[in-house]
């Protein structure tokens, strides 16, 4: 009975406000643009209080790595999934370690969000 309650609670809570990004270890593969490698990521937003997410690429020391994407701050409406590609220069291929998505909170008080969520995947090349 406790298990049933626990599983139900998990699903109910998940519906309220969840943020996820996959894959955990994306491969950086040669892209259609010369000199660039890319990783395909998928983000799911079940947070009602958040609509915008910032994408970032970092090295192992958490220093930013230059990258390109369709948008650095992208709108992912509540309950929807977005697939996007992150492009990194070939020369930064071995430096790029983390691809992260960070929820952006509104500065006005319209949504009572005070928890900012950030999920980081580790590029396959940087996987220990």
């Amino acid at each position, binding site marked *: 009975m406790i298990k049933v309650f626990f599983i139900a609670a998990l699903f109910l*809570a998940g519906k309220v406000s969840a943020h996820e990004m996959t894959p*955990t270890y994306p491969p950086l593969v040669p892209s259609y643009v010369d000199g660039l490698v890319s990783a395909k990521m998928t983000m799911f937003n079940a947070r009602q209080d958040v609509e915008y997410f910032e994408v970032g690429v970092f090295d192992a020391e958490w220093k930013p790595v230059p990258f390109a994407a369709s948008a650095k701050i992208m709108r992912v409406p509540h309950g929807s999934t977005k697939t996007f590609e992150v492009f990194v220069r070939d020369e930064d291929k071995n430096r790029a370690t*983390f691809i992260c998505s960070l929820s952006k909170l509104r500065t006005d008080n319209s949504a*009572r969000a005070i928890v900012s*969520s950030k999920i980081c995947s580790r590029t396959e090349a940087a996987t220990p």
Partner: protein
Amino acid sequence: MVKYPLILTALCIPFAGNAEEALIEGNVQSKCIINTDINGVYGNPAPDKLSTKSVDGGVEPTIRFDVAIANYYMARVITPSSFSTSPSLTDVVNWTGTTTVGEVSDAGMSAYDAAKVTYDTTSEFDLTIAGSTWFKVDSVATYGFGRAFPGGTYRAVVQAECIAQ
């Protein structure tokens, strides 16, 4: 006596020949989901103090981390060190914050608290067991040396991070 097995066999053979198979495939991949189960509220138990602790009249933010496979992710919770929204403040604000394991889906996860790494306002937890862990965050802000916080709305942000290992 021999007839019944024969009839039963005869009945079964045509069905076996026409059987359709519906294939269901599934794939469990490593992933981390961050859920903000409860957004916190600051209580104001004293003029110079704002606190999310329930004893201070606040509500502790509760964040749930779900991991599908063990040992793939690390949870990092950063408690506030400044207000994102506040009236103009002319004195220093002193911040303290702690992150503790609340509910767990597996009894072994209660060891996360003892194994956590804390520095500055950050707490790191290795998610070594698949399942869900609820983290509770305490945040306390005191103003100056016993000075009263000016009236207005105060808001601070807790950052919850899930980092692939």
